[in-house]
């Protein structure tokens, strides 16, 4: 399967996504500079984490105007698979490809640690290799991961089964104690109505090798490979 990883000035996890997809998952990876508009014919576009434009003004606010984002939007509109991780999730929200916004963490501190995620939806191209209710150990590393959406927006997400992953504890219990950043309803990742665009704050790119602490993030990559095969 062929992945294109978008590189903005200030992207950092472009490197992590590249090495994880190529060296760990054994896939083809193209890097796409933000000034380019040619996505190089991918099966899936990854918008990686980092600090695009230093996260200045507002996370993702400037990056969404990069020329490449128009191509990403068109690709998504045609049903192409797009996954945004961390800063990539923030960019997809700013660009309107996903609903809602990410606010400062409740603690106002950047938080880097392993947390637990509960898989809420297995019927997406990004999670089909998992089981709903499954608990994943996976790292977060962000200062603005506090997901917010207005009341009717939240209702739409829930009714449409668009809440894909939520923060939980080791046993899979979702509650305030297991909410690291204040996210509404412990939401850690969502997809769009068409289910071909997915964004999450935790880092599957950092959790595909046991030696790094956890390989649970592979679920997302494996799912994409399954989806790619079907496609």
């Amino acid at each position, binding site marked *: 399967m062929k992945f294109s990883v978008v590189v903005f000035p200030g992207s950092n996890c472009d490197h*992590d996504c590249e*090495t994880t997809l190529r060296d760990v998952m054994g896939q083809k990876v193209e890097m796409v500079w933000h000034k380019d508009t040619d996505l190089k014919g991918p099966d899936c576009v990854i918008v990686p984490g980092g600090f695009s434009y*230093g996260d200045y003004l507002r996370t993702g606010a400037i990056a969404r105007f990069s020329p490449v984002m128009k191509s990403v939007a068109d690709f998504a509109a045609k049903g192409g698979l797009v996954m945004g991780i961390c800063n990539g999730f923030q960019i997809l929200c700013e660009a309107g490809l996903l609903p809602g916004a990410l606010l400062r963490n409740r603690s106002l501190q950047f938080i*880097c640690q392993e947390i637990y995620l509960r898989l809420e939806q297995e019927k997406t191209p990004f999670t089909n290799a998992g089981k709903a209710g499954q608990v994943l150990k996976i790292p977060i*590393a962000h200062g603005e991961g506090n997901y917010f959406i207005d009341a009717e927006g939240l209702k739409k997400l829930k009714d449409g089964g668009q809440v894909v992953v939520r923060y939980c504890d080791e046993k899979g219990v979702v509650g305030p104690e297991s909410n690291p950043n204040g996210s509404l309803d412990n939401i850690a990742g969502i997809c769009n109505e068409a289910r071909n665009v997915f964004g999450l704050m935790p880092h599957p790119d950092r959790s595909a090798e046991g030696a790094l602490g956890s390989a649970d993030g592979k679920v997302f990559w494996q799912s994409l490979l399954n989806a790619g095969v079907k496609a």
Partner: protein
Amino acid sequence: MSPTVEITPEIVKEHGLKPDEYERILKILGRQPNLTELGVYSVMWSEHCGYKHSKEVLRKFTTQGDKVLQGPGENAGIMDIGEGWAVAFKVESHNHPSAVEPYQGAATGVGGILRDIFTMGARPIANLNSLRFGPLALPKVKHLFTGVVKGIADYGNCMGIPTVAGEVVFDETYTDNCLVNAMSVGLVRHEHIIRGKASGVGNAVIYIGATTGRDGIHGATFASTEISDESQEKRSAVQVADPFMEKLLMEATLELIQGDLLVGIQDMGAAGLTCSTCEMASRGGAGIEIDVAKVPQREGGMTPYEILLSESQERMLLVAKPGCEQKVHDVLAKWDLHAATIGKVTDTGLMVVKEKGKTVVEVPAQSLTEPPIYHPAKSEPAILKKHREFDEASIAVPKDLTAVLLRLLADPTIASKRWVYRQYDHMVRTNTYVRPGSDAAVVRVKGTALGLAMTIDGNGAYCALDPYEGGKIAVAEAARNIACSGAEPLGMTDCLNYGSPEKPEVFYMFERSVSGVADASAFLKIPVTGGNVSLYNESPQGAIDPTPIVGMIGLFKDVQKRVTQWFKKDGDVIYLLGAVGDSIGASRYLHLVHGQKTGLCPRLVLDTERKLHRLLIESAQAGLLQSAHDCSEGGLAVALAESCFSGLSHEEGMKGAKVSLPGLGRLDGRLFGEAQSRAVVSCDPGKAAQFEAAAAKLGVPLEKLGSVGGDELQIGDAVKLSVREAADLFNNAIEKIMA
């Protein structure tokens, strides 16, 4: 040149130059300098850039070794790690700026050390930091601590470089002088190593990065004068960090170097454009000529004086290879970076600065990098004798030693630094095999079997009581941390934090402790490849404790052989390696529980230390160890407790242990004494015999203490506690105070 301003003794004094130093300038120039030239000499001859008082002492260091590719004298040291790879590393202080403006001061400190690394052609792969503050209960200290940590975090996180290790100590001596020492580590292919020298007459000198403003003017001289209330006025010296600009600079710089487009490159750190131009020229034995009018400026009407002395951050100076100038500009354009050709390399040996063609500075470049060298007077402080002769018998052994252990575990200096490192992205780049929370961090080298262990350590209290032993211990402890992780110590960098060298007692402590650092580094064959000196850490209350900090790199040929500090499984055998001892001298315990910072500093026998390292490294390579943790502050008891619960830092849960308390003499000394060259290790019972044989062969004393198991830690009949409760105390101590 006709001096526009008459140089009076007052002006010379304002520039922090002594009369004889001014005389020296007159001799060099054979004429009176103009004001701009005076400014240029004043920053280059400041302690911070010129090492006037420390250079002699630094000669004690062993800087050679068969793996050393670059020793002191460049932006960072470089050592070979095999397979065509080399590691670049260096530590630098940003104490004074952080004391004035903690967030920006610490952030720009990280920015500065990162530039030192990628300026050598190396891609930074990890950051470390060593911090010192007053007692955390003080509101003023909370403010400093919060700002410094956030500054370090925001900068490293934004750059996408993991901050993987560090240390924090809270002690009265640092209340008015916090210490912020930042270290960075980078990887470079041998063929891409580049240096900060200008050569090739006619080659273009190109300025890149942020525009030049009035910020930070005299930052360098500022860092060399004691902090007094009037430095509150020096607010113009506050520089604002721009990590996004630095990220662009880093990527562009590495692209230029790997594209083989450059002759030399140098960051603009302390003393800005002045330092970078004359250093490049003098390293290359060349001259350099620039026109300040061509320098990209942020504010209107800046004078040559201001442009030359500005310490605006995130700027670099580079010399392009002939014919590559256009290619260089293309790369910079790709990264949307300001770039301006501001001058050329000459063969005159002069640093010539023009303004729209009119010469405003013309001085021998070399003379700026060769300030006067001082041999200050020194005298041993009388108090040292008192400390040595302190009578431990005057301290009663507490009844409830479990309570004492819990108190030590909750002491911010000993307690978990999770509050700090959780704010640092320590995982980005997906190489961090051992994260903060073990003796040394371990980072793999992708595409090879190699790994690097890294740590940064120092103990100002030891040095205050016995500078020589304290200096040795700083090196030994760093090496011990590396050895506990299973890696072979490779090389070190040091940051020397002291008070005013012009005070004989301070200079005595400086010289003695540096001798200790140098002797340990020589004996253990761990060369010093670079470092930094921060003097004048003084307040109205006097000088800080002498605080030499050692940053060290260790090498794994096979990173799979790494060892972490926490117990792994029930039934494993627990050993204490090294002597037992019952002295409480110089211990954190004596200071915290009995309020006395005194006593005989632990003696360090270098050959004993070396043998311990051999055993730890060889057993790790042979796969005999389940865990290894060195005994440092808090002694054996704290080392055992941490071995029980520090697995939590890696989501690996915790373990109990039932052990005997070895040795004779006072119980508190046996539990909390800080005898050196010791470690607590655990072994699978099946490998215990083999391990004991290895220890015997190397002549390392070993005590079988007991075994891993249960959910309590029991040490003889002196200590019994619930590991869960101890862990909560340890992990939340700093959170609680900061809440």
